[in-house]
């Protein structure tokens, strides 16, 4: 064994972003070492989970041959919940039933295992149960990593940090400051097992078809957050998450677990879960700071991908596709630099930033850059409006002796009373700003 181990790239982390990077580089012939701190790839990862086929197709075009996929999604439901009701919009299309399918529900434990096996087939070396303690610097250049094992130093031309939302490496190296509680959400989820046929009957789907329900409203108890319910092959995933700073501020009132339990009891949700057994419960942090919370993601001999770089589009609940895409873009940056014989300096790795800016990743994050702030500072979007909208719907849809015009007036006045005219206008403006 050589005294000093050297690789073209070291990837820290074997989640979706790390796997995307490692796979792409190994496939093009680079010598890659991937270091995962968990017992096996995926053991430290948690997600809803939805797989965005487009992002994975660009890395492994024929992934559908053997990747473990639960159901392909044909219907999306968006619900705004009050305490005992909800107003929803659904979109379902037969186009989603035409292969190749665009989104799938997956079970992360199995998916990560599969993705990792592909990475190793491509020629990357993977070691697990190994934690990278710190980056090895030569001046301001990252030249390798130091791990928590004997003789634990290994060197590379570039180190790609794919070490997730809790990443400490970049912070230790001084590349960016501590993560703020207002920039992460704490989400919890459960998997409930349920017979396949029952799921299909209840959600009006056939074999292999899936439904996604995204929820917002009173279920988050006044805090900024969302809930979700996904159909897997023979289980349902239900979860809810809110800003960590909100949980901390409301510690006496609601814990993530309490929110989840309350959500499961909601009269519109409970019937969907009837007959589900055997809970598997987990929790995780999700970066939610958006555009403004993204740190510097490249430097002299290093790049950051995935959650570690805050690449999550909270509005559309997209994270794993950004993870895979950023991983791929970082890999491509390195591959191109190596092919052109360039040294792996900050100037050269700047290409990574350019690729990000040109892709949907930064474009989407930029579009929604104000969203976190707007929603965080305006809890009425999670409490008052869901109430108003639900009551409005109830008023309009209840057939009684009241004439429709009176009903309309009732609705408008309830809005005005609640938020005042200027408040309403202001809210509309804020929403516009957030979504622009």
């Amino acid at each position, binding site marked *: *064994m050589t005294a000093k*181990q050297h690789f073209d790239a070291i990837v820290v982390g074997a989640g979706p972003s790390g796997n995307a990077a490692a796979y792409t580089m190994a496939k093009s012939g680079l010598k890659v*070492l991937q270091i995962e701190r968990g*017992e*096996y790839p995926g*053991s430290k990862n948690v997600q809803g989970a939805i797989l965005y086929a487009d992002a994975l197709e660009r890395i492994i075009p024929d992934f559908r041959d053997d990747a473990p996929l639960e159901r392909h999604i044909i219907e999306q439901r968006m619900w705004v919940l009050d305490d005992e009701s909800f107003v929803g919009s659904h979109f379902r299309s037969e186009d989603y039933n035409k292969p190749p399918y665009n989104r799938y529900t997956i*079970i992360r*434990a*199995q998916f990560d295992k599969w993705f990792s096996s592909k990475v190793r087939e491509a020629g990357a*070396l*993977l*070691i697990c149960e*190994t934690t990278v303690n710190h980056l090895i610097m030569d001046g301001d250049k990252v030249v390798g990593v130091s*791990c928590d*094992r*004997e*003789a*634990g*130093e*290994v060197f590379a031309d570039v180190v790609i940090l794919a070490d997730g939302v809790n990443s400490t490496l970049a912070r230790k190296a001084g590349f960016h400051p501590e993560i703020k509680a207002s920039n992460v959400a704490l989400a919890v989820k459960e998997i409930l*097992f349920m*017979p396949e046929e029952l799921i299909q009957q209840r959600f009006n789907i056939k074999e292999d078809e899936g439904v996604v329900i995204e929820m917002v409203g009173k279920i988050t108890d006044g805090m900024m957050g969302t809930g979700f319910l996904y159909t897997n092959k023979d289980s349902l995933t239900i979860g809810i998450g809110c800003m960590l700073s909100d949980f901390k501020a409301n510690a006496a009132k609601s814990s993530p677990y309490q929110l989840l339990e309350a959500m499961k009891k909601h009269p519109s949700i409970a019937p969907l879960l009837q007959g589900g*057994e*055997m809970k598997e419960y987990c929790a995780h942090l999700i970066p939610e700071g958006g555009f403004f919370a993204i740190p510097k993601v490249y430097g002299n001999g290093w790049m950051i991908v995935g959650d570690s770089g805050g690449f999550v589009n909270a509005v559309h609940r997209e994270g794993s596709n950004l993870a895979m895409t950023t991983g791929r873009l970082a890999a491509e940056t390195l591959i191109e630099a190596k092919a052109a014989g360039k040294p792996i300096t900050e100037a050269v790795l700047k290409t990574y930033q350019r690729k990000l800016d040109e892709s949907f990743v930064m474009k989407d994050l930029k579009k929604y850059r104000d969203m976190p702030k707007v929603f965080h500072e305006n809890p009425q979007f999670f409490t008052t409006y869901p109430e108003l909208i639900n009551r409005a719907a109830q008023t309009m849809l209840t057939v009684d002796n009241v004439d429709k015009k009176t009903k309309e007036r009732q609705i408008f006045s309830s809005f005005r009373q609640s938020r005042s005219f200027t408040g309403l206008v202001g809210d509309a403006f804020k929403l516009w700003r957030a979504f622009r």
Partner: protein
Amino acid sequence: MHIVVCIKQVPDSAQIRVHPVTNTIMRQGVPAIVNPYDLFSLEEALRLKDQFGGKVTVLCMGPPQAEEALRKCVSFGADEAVLVTDRAFAGADTLATSYALAAAIRKLNSEQKVDLVFTGKQTIDGDTAQVGPGIAKRMGLQLLTYVSRIVETDVDGGTITVERRGEGGVQVLKTQMPALITMLENTNEMRFASLPAMIQAAAYQVRKWSKEDAAIEDLTKIGLKGSPTVVSKVFGPTPRSEKAEMLVLENSTLRDVTLTLLQSIFTRQPTLEQDLLDKLSA
């Protein structure tokens, strides 16, 4: 010295659960691990290698994914790993398994003389503790099970002295190599692999043998055909019809509840009170 350590890849049974409706095993997401008992035997073998030099080969009869388990053993320091894998082995009980492993060890022996064979005390999925003794019998090796400590190894003289756990004490046994040893649990602590060892293991190509490579000729002795034991049914334990009689703390004091409990216990188990009194007066 050449030491062969037999290992098995097993589901982490601590994480296995039964589906409450279908009563089948939910294997989804249950990680596969090296049978924990095997690691004590592996560590002991590695210590002998540290002391006397030589080579440690890990051997496994299993499906293709068992390669992971072998690779893990290489990361701890095993020099070579052999996976004997073939569809014909499916359904093997312990008799058929020991037949296949004995054949593979004989083949390894023909490459380099084997001084010691280690197996784990038992597996966490089968729990039978039969494969070690089975291999020893088939190969004519001296068998030393439940070894708590290796006292002395005389490589030149070809002898080994061990302490073996029995009822109420420990036997001191001395025998000639080649011998087969199963180590008791918690007799040692597995070393941490160094980073270079981890990387080497990640790059290591596990040797894969089919039944022909392992020089197994008699196909009636392996897999389902070679297994005298037949599983006639698998089922979940029946829940008891009566659940516990619950004593509620809310409406009464803890003191009252405990007194009620005592009365119930003594009524239900009449001889208990006298036993306790006898013990106290003794």
